[in-house]
């Protein structure tokens, strides 16, 4: 796509220069195990950033993802503690996620609420339910099956990274090779046109939010495996990281102007930055500041490129 070539630089340059900087200055940054770390640590965020890209393309956003991920994780853990089979519990987690996704979609599409408000409200609802269910406690005793799967590797590649890769492949196909993808561009770009083309735009629009919820459920699977407990507030704030990854990745909040690979770059850049600063033992306070800097610089590069 000619336009992706035009788009690549902004974030990619940043990522490249960070990698170079850390490889030169950070001991063992460029080692295989560390790169695997980065992949591991970024995988859950990627699961959220992918659907967030589609949602942003429809001129929306989903602030409830983190909370929903937390709730799904709690449900998953609770069911496992009560001795349900992993597939059952996982299905339930996906179900909860999808349910909230649909709820978001209905509020935004059918009732025409601003996405920010609707999903902020759902954030409260999901987090509240999770807290009430667990009284804020972490849900332990989920057995070894899930953590086992999370820890497993295939050809030396950790499970989480494989899932993330698979998820990207799926979304890439969905967005660029299926009708649904075409309609994602259309909903953001020219809703009227889609309707006049005889496509039930509303249904697809809700579907996009539902996919967001579904992926939050999938994220819960990884996160719970990673922590080997369910925790109601473990994922709070992840939705913002996902939003940032998507936007620094070059997806615009208007006219269905989205670019999926950019979101991957965005996620990786955030991951590389945090990891690299840790590897260089940079004080936490400066890490915080540099995240802010990253976000702004990434967009500055684009806006300057845009001008020229």
């Amino acid at each position, binding site marked *: 796509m000619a336009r992706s070539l035009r788009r690549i630089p902004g974030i990619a340059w940043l990522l490249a220069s960070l990698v170079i900087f850390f490889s030169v200055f950070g001991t063992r940054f460029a080692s295989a195990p560390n790169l695997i770390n980065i992949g*591991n640590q970024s995988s859950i965020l990627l699961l959220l950033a992918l659907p967030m890209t589609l949602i942003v393309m429809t001129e929306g956003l989903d602030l409830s993802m983190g909370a929903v991920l937390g709730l799904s994780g709690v449900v998953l853990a609770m069911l496992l503690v009560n001795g349900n089979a992993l597939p059952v519990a996982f299905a339930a987690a996906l179900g909860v996620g999808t349910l909230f996704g649909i709820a978001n979609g209905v509020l935004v599409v059918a009732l025409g609420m601003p996405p920010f408000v609707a999903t902020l409200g759902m954030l409260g609802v999901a987090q509240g339910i999770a807290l009430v269910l*667990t009284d804020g406690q972490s849900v332990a005793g989920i057995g070894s099956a899930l953590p086992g799967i999370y820890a497993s590797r295939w050809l030396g590649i950790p499970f989480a990274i494989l899932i993330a890769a698979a998820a990207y492949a799926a979304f890439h196909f969905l967005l660029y090779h299926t009708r649904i993808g075409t309609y994602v561009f259309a909903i953001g770009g020219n809703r009227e046109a889609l309707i006049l083309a005889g496509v039930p735009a509303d249904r697809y629009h809700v579907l996009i939010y539902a996919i967001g919820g579904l992926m939050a459920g999938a994220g819960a699977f990884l996160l719970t495996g*990673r922590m080997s407990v369910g925790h109601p507030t473990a994922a709070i704030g992840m939705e913002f990281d996902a939003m940032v990854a998507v936007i620094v990745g070059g997806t615009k909040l208007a006219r269905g102007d989205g670019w999926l690979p950019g979101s991957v770059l965005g996620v990786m850049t955030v991951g590389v930055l945090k990891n690299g600063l840790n590897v260089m033992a940079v004080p936490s306070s400066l890490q915080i500041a540099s995240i802010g800097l990253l976000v702004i610089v990434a967009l500055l590069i684009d806006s300057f490129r845009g001008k020229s």
Partner: protein
Amino acid sequence: MNIFIQNVRSTTAVVLMIFTASCAKPVDEGAGQTGGESIAVFTKNQTNPFFETVRLGAKNAAKQMNATVIQYIPTVQDSITEQLSEIEDAIIKRPGAVVFIPVNSRAMIPGIEKLNAANIPVVNITDRVLGGSVISFMGCDETNMALNTGRFLLQRLNGRGNVIILEGVGGSENSSNRVTGYRKALAEFPNVKLLASQPANFQRVQALQVTENLLQSYPQIDGILAANDSMALGAIEALDAARRNAFVVGLNGTKEAIDAIKAGKLLASGDCDGFRHGCLGTMAAVRHLRNLPVPKEFIFSVMVIDNTNYAGLDVPYEERMCPSWESVVKDK
């Protein structure tokens, strides 16, 4: 105390550090050799002063034993995922040993197991990790700390009156342990009535507002049992503003709490001294690397700081020195 100026210096130092990091510090594989061991210290956040005292203690001990410390603090406070990531990142740097405070005693088990797998010895301090293997746990019995502190206040009430409890973050182990301790104390004093037990998330402003609200609904409150010092001090602000009086106790013995005790505003603060946690934890880690004996478990004595005994603690942490290992560990 002009923190700002002082830190501009320290930070320019840090910045320089980043860019000179290129001449990578010699990789220190720890065990055996004496001196130059690198100890990775994990704390929960940079907002709660308690953990700052832990970090200072660790730094101080390391200096004494000429080892180096690297601090790992989540950028988002108490973030489970971030602490897990930081463990993974630390393993890459292969520190000699790790001194570890979990942000969550269960969710951090996989982290500890990762460290075990990497053969990096772990000294677990302050809050217990409920899994994985550690060379030593050095912390305090928080329930006991709250029990003693609560008892102290209730005795001052001569065993009668109305009290409220300010809980921490709902469900966090610290909060529940401490609240349990307070409730145990209350059980010993049947004539004291517990009016309400409300969460204020360890935060000053929320404690302030919760107390204000409770002051509205209860005309007579004689005692306030707060699960940490920040909340206790928030409660005191509420009392002052409402021109009401009550005995207030907190936990952690922070510098601010001690000043409040000196000023006669705070009745007491239960303490098992984060500074010592930092000191002893780090010492234990280094000792282990130097093949010196380390107790499998060490529980710090709890101290209830009040206006009779704060004097010894009333020195800025920057000037405090770690006690010698023997002086502490022998009396167990």
